[in-house]
C-alpha cells in the first residue's frame, strides 16, 4: 500500500518488451503506462471543464435572472435534452455533423507526445464538445435552481426593497449563498468528465486513461486495472472533499463561530 503513495503501482502483466537486448524480458511498470494516458485524459477533461463550467454558470445565472422567459425555457429544455442523451450518441451526432457532413474537425482525436498544443485543441475539439454538452446541462440546472431557491428568502425581498437591481440581487445576494450546492454539482460533474471520458475516448479513439483501462480489462492486466480504478476512486474522494471545503469557506456560519 505504502508503495502506491510513492508512485509504485507494480508491474504490468502485458507489454513485455526487450530492454537492452541481453537483459532478458522485463515487464513495464504500471506507472509508465498510466502517466502519459492520464496526462491526455486530464488535458481533455481540463479543456472541457474550462468550457463547460463558466458556460453552465453563465447560463444558469441568466436563466434564473430571466426566470420563466422564453430564454429560460429554451435553455432548460435544451439542457434537459443534452443531459438525457448518452455520450456515444452525442459524440456520433457531432461526428456526423462536424466531421462528415461539414468536415471541420477530425473524427479521430489521435494525439501523441509530439502533438503541438494548438493541434491538440484542434484534434480534441469534438470530444470536448461532447463532454461539455453532457455535463453542462446538469450544472446549469443546478445553478439555476439553487439561485431560484434562494430568491424566495426574506433577505432577497429585503434587498429588493432596499433598491437593489435584479443583477445585484442575483450576483451579490443570491450567488454567495448558493456556492455550496453549486460547488457540489460542479465537482460531481468534473469527476464524471474524468471517468465518463471512458466512453468519449472510445468513440473518438483518444489515447486516454479510460481506453487504457478498457484495453487492460480485455487483456486481464489486473495491476493496470487496479491502478486505474484507484485513480478514479480517489478522484471522486478528492473532488468531493474540495466541494465540502468550498461549502465551508463560502458559509460564514461555519467559518466564524458564534
Amino acid at each position, binding site marked *: 500500500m505504502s508503495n502506491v503513495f510513492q508512485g509504485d503501482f507494480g508491474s504490468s502483466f502485458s507489454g513485455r518488451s526487450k530492454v537492452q537486448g541481453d537483459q532478458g524480458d522485463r515487464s513495464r511498470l504500471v506507472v509508465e503506462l498510466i502517466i502519459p494516458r492520464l496526462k491526455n485524459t486530464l488535458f481533455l477533461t481540463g479543456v472541457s471543464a474550462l468550457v463547460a463550467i463558466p458556460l453552465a454558470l453563465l447560463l444558469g445565472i441568466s436563466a434564473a435572472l430571466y426566470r420563466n422567459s422564453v430564454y429560460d425555457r429554451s435553455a432548460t429544455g435544451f439542457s434537459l435534452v443534452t443531459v438525457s442523451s448518452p455520450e456515444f450518441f452525442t459524440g456520433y451526432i457531432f461526428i456526423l455533423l462536424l466531421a462528415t457532413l461539414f468536415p471541420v474537425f477530425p473524427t479521430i482525436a489521435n494525439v501523441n507526445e509530439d502533438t503541438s498544443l494548438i493541434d491538440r485543441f484542434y484534434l480534441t475539439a469534438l470530444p470536448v464538445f461532447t463532454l461539455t454538452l453532457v455535463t453542462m446541462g446538469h450544472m446549469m440546472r443546478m445553478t439555476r435552481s439553487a439561485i431560484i431557491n434562494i430568491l424566495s428568502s426574506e*433577505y432577497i425581498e429585503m434587498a429588493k*426593497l*432596499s*433598491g*437593489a437591481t435584479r443583477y445585484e440581487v442575483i450576483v451579490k445576494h443570491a450567488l*454567495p*449563498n448558493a456556492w455550496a450546492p453549486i460547488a457540489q454539482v460542479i465537482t460531481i460533474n468534473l469527476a464524471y468528465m474524468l471517468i465518463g471520458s471512458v466512453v468519449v475516448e472510445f468513440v473518438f479513439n483518444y489515447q486516454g486513461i479510460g481506453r487504457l483501462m478498457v484495453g487492460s480489462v480485455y487483456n486481464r492486466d489486473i495491476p493496470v486495472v487496479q491502478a486505474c480504478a484507484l485513480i478514479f476512486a480517489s478522484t471522486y474522494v478528492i473532488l468531493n472533499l474540495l466541494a465540502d471545503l468550498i461549502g465551508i469557506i463560502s458559509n*460564514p456560519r461555519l467559518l*466564524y463561530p458564534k
Partner: protein
Amino acid sequence: MTSNNKKELLLEMKNIHIDGFSDERWHKILKGVDLNLYRGEILGLIGESGAGKSTMGKAAMGYTQPGCKIIKGEILFNGTDLAKLTEFEKRKIWGTKISYVAQSAAASFNPAHRLMDQTISAANRAKINSTEVLRKDAVQLYESLQLPDAENIGERYPHQVSGGQLQRIMTAMAMSPRPELIIFDEPTTALDVTTQVEVLSAMRSIVDKFNTAAIYITHDLAVVAQMADRIKVLRYGEEVEESETREMLSNPKEEYTKSLWSVRSLIKPEETNEDYMLSIKNIDAAYGSSKVLHNVSVNIPRGKTVAIVGESGSGKSTTARVITGLLPQTKGEIIFDGKKLSPKLEQRSKEELRRIQIIFQMPDTAMNPKQTVDEIIGRPIEFYHGVKGKEREAKVIELLKMIELDESFLDRLPSELSGGQKQRICIARALAANPDLIICDEVTSALDQIVQEGILKLLQKLQKDLGVTYIFITHDIATVKAISDEIVVMYQGKVVEQGLKSKILNPPHPDYTELLLSSVPEMDPDWLTNLLNKRSS
C-alpha cells in the same frame, strides 16, 4: 414632531385594491383602503393575520409580493404616483427615500455578508456619501440605538449577534440613507418582552431624532399605542376605523375594535391544592455539553394549571421535554402521581405515556399533512385504548364536539383548516389519549388575539369538565393571567420563583420577575415613556 410639519402630506394612498394569487385563483387582499401620512408622523396599522396590513405596508412603497398585483388605486409619495412608476424608477426611491424594516431580522439579513456592509448598502448604492462617511455614520446610529460595542459590531456576521440586536441593526440600516418614510413591519413580534422594550425605545427615539415619518404595522395594540400618533384598524382588507391613538384607546367606536381590547380581560379565579400530580425535583439537563437546566424543581397540583413563564432560552420548553422523556435528565427525579418516572422515553410503560400528552406551538408542523382529521385523532384512540371500527368513529366525533367542531371535519386535511382549527385538532389529539396531564407548549403564540381567546376558553372548559392538569408554557403574561392557578418564573435554566398567581404578579418581586412584568406593554400611550423614566432614575 412639530405641529408645523404635520400639515405637510407625505404619502397619500387612495382606494387601494390588491389581489393575490393562491390555490389556483385570485383573492382580494385589499378592498379599497385609503391612507394619509404626514411628514414626521407615525401611523399604526393593526389587524389580525390576513387583514392585509403587511400588504398595505408594502404597497406604500409601490411594492407587491410575487403573486400579488395592484388592481386599482393611487400611491402618491411626495406627489408621485408609485403605482405608475417602472421598476427602475421605484428602485431609486426604495432604500433611499422609503425604507423597510422586516419582521424576522434573522431571516432578513443576508447570511453571507457582514452587518456593516448591509447597513450601508442602500446609501452606498445611491452614492449619498463616501463609504468612509457612511461607515462612521452607521457606527453613530448603532450607538444611538444602544448597541453594545458599536465600533465593531458591524464587522460581525448576522448569525453572530442576537435577535434583538439584529432588529436594531436593521433599524440602523433603514435609517442610514435618512429616508423620509420607514415601514416597520411587525418589527418586535418575534422578540421577548424584555428585548422588545429595548428595541421599541431605540426605534422610537431614532425616529423622533430624525423626524422621520413611519408606518408601524403590528397585531399588538399595546405596542402600537407606544409608537403611533394615529392608529388605523384593518380587517378582511377593509378599514374598520381610524383615529388618534389616545382617542382610539379610550373610546373605540366599532365593535370589532372593542373586541380587540376585550381579549385581555379573560380572568380565572386561582385555586391550588397540596395533592401533586407531578413533581420534578432538582432536575439538571443538557443538550450535548451545554447545560440548560440547573436544579429545577416544580410541583404541579392535580387538576390545576401551572404556567411556566420566561423568555426564550430560559429552559421552559426543555423542562417540558424532560417531563415527557424526550430529553432524559442528567440529575434529579420526576414523580408522577406518586410514582417515579424513568428518565428515558423507551423505559416508560404505555400507560405512563398515555397519561402525559403534549400540545405544540406550531399546529402546522405538529400534524402529518397527508393525514385526515379522522386519522390524526383516531390513531391515539386505537393505540392507547385498542378501540376500532364504529366505536372508534363515535369517539372521534365525540372529541370533535368537545373541541367545538363537528363531524364534517372528519375527512379534511390539515391544509384545509384555519390556524385556530388546527390547534383545536391538536388539542383533541392530546385528549384522545384520555390523559391526566397535558403540557401546552406556547399553544397560543402563533394565533391571533381573538382565536387565542377561543382556545384558552376551550382549555378552561375542558379542565372543568375532565379535571385534566395543565402545564402551560408561555412567554405571554396576558395568557398567564387568563389561564393559570400557579406561576413558575424561569430564567437562564433556573427557577426564579413559584407560587400562586396573585403572589407572583403582585409585589414584592425578585429582580427578574420585576423586569419581566414591567416589560409587558400596557394599553397606555405613556407606558413606555414612564417605564423608561422609571428605569433610568
